[in-house]
């Protein structure tokens, strides 16, 4: 008999406009997304570390403009029929990406790309693609401010219906690496631990989670792949949704 698998993200991921946490670190990106008409050559690339909200923004933009939202790694050669957003575009196969940019450019359709680094750093082997990427307007989503991390932690806990008093939230946040990815991972672990112990989120539980994450963080983490080796985090990105 097939066994029920325990999926790492049992709750639905929300990509609603009202769920998006606007902050100074993403204000510039929001401004560009509100003004699609001002994108040079009709192209824009958002870049920033894992968990900084790129996928969320792509969803909002795609909904608003009736755009196809494509997963970069699955990109295949086809002619675009409308505006296109490509998540994880830095992992897209090169020729389909190049042809998408060309075809959309010819048809006057806007293309929104997202990746962890600026497109100028994607270093594709195809020179034609490299020069198009370097000519693309790139907008960085900056490191999260304390206020944003605070709101994110509160929201993620609420989404999983984890009741954690505010002082404990502050206590936990202070002990976590200051990135959205770390906050997400901490909440996922907290949820898991609370579920396993069948109880509330206690200070001891929070301490164990923070200590676990600090342990992983003791080496010099590259900011982007904080959890690349933990195997626990499921990127809330395209892979799961698309």
């Amino acid at each position: 008999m097939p066994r029920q698998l325990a999926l790492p993200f049992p709750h639905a991921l929300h990509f609603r406009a009202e769920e998006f946490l606007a902050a100074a670190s993403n204000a510039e990106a929001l401004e560009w997304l509100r003004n699609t008409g001002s994108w040079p050559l009709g192209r824009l690339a958002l870049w920033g570390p894992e968990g900084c909200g790129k996928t969320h923004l792509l969803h909002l933009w795609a909904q608003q403009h009736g755009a196809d939202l494509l997963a970069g790694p699955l990109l295949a050669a086809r002619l675009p029929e409308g505006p296109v957003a490509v998540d994880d575009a830095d992992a897209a196969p090169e020729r389909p990406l190049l042809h998408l940019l060309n075809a959309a450019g010819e048809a006057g359709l806007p293309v929104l790309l997202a990746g962890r680094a600026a497109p100028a750093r994607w270093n594709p082997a195809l020179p034609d693609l490299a020069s198009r990427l370097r000519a693309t307007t790139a907008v960085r989503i900056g490191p999260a401010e304390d206020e944003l991390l605070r709101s994110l932690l509160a929201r993620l806990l609420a989404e999983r219906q984890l009741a954690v008093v505010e002082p404990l939230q502050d206590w936990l946040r202070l002990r976590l690496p200051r990135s959205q990815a770390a906050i997400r991972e901490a909440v996922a672990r907290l949820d898991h631990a609370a579920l396993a112990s069948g109880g509330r989120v206690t200070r001891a539980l929070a301490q164990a989670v923070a200590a676990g994450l600090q342990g992983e963080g003791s080496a010099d983490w590259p900011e982007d792949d904080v959890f690349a080796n933990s195997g626990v985090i499921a990127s809330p990105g395209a892979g799961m949704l698309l």
Partner: protein
Amino acid sequence: MTAGQRSRDEPQLAAQWARVRGRLQSEVGDVEYRTWLRQMSLGGLDGDEITVRLPTRFLRDWVRTHYGDRLNALWQAENRRVRRVDIRVGGITPGDGLAEPVNVVEPVNVVEPVSVGEPVSVGEPPPQSLQPQSSSPQFALPPPLPASEPSPAGGLPAPDRADGRSENAAALDPRFTFDSFVVGKPNEFAHACARRVAANPASAGFNPLFLYGGVGLGKTHLMHAIAWDLTRNGDASRRGAPVSVAYMSAEKFMYRFIAAIRSQSTMEFKEQLRSVDVLMIDDLQFLIGKDATQEEFFHTFNALVDAGKQIVVSADKSPSDLSGLEERVRTRLGCGMVADLHATTFELRVSILEAKSARAGVPVLPKVLEFLAHKITSNVRELEGALNRLIAHANLFGRTITLESTQEVLHDILKAHDRRVTIEEIQRRVSEHWNIRLTDMSSARRARNVARPRQVAMYLAKQLTSRSLPEIGRKFGNRDHTTVMHAVQRVGELMERDASFAEDVELLRRMLES
């Protein structure tokens, strides 16, 4: 309140609201206002309570905490009836679609991977873009856009545009004309050849015209310029007789050929291609390894040349260097005029930037243009891309273009890579800057000449890394996170009061980031 009273009050309320916002904006500054407050909208006055709406919960909370008191005071000053301001979620500023609350997560249209484009019916004439003077409407170009119209890529297209636009009508970029092509030593020969073909298609010695050069040096620009010129002016050598032009990239040629095979309409495909006066294929290198498409191209090529029609081809290499193309194809390609576009010189790059900023109607300081011409040497596409970005950024955010803003906006292409700064590096740099021992970063000494640099290093560690504060504290001799918090606060205060200190800290930050 009665309905009549409400409608009488509305214009007055709107005017008061405009003044409240204006005052708030001048109090907090443009940047802060744009970031947090611009999306406020007025709900209405109910009794003594006025409602202000914001599109997201986060913004509502933020505005409540940070600007609630000011909004209250400003409203009370404007309207004596107002006693309280209620800040709520809801209400959308027009044109601010991204902030629109979306209550249902719509399923996003996911496209299945397919190996080639959708079948395209090549037998049908396009619904639009017929050129009356064209002898072959199937390949007619869209009518030229007026010069004042923005590029098609700039605006959001109407929803049906992609479908309505014919596959057959080659998309020509309205910006790519001879007028907008900046000529310099590296490209003057190719430009002259292109002019010649545009003025006198299929003249002896120029068929085919083969343009080649590295990426982004202007091959496509010249191709489009020839096509525009011919469709607008016709064949000048035959008193402006209409010319039908088919322009397409090699990849599109391939898509359409495959589609024709699928829909069993290869005969129509061949006939259409062979009925044009000028066939232009861009980026021919993409046919390498596509033997069947190459074969078809070869036959079309021969048929057209034999019939005295003009062929223009571009590629990234000269015909003889296009290994992977069949020998007979290479030979045929090289038997007309072969013109190359060389890498740009500094002078040409400056001229290109000057011309482009003048066309955009945005004055850019000569030192900024020279800086770009000096830094971005790879190709014209990237050079123009950089200027486009600067101009779009300046327009969108209402900023002037300076050398500093240029470096900031274009940092991803100006710098070879983004540095990931470590706490150890910060400690080393800061120690060197104030000439103290590195060990003092973690020592217990509290003398000001040591403590202050240590605080700066903590401040920078918070700004430039994502480490938690307790972890930063540990790296500074196992200090408590409250010490780090205090340092961050103290340095922030000092930077506001002491300009030269602030300059020191900024300099360190730039050094660490570069």
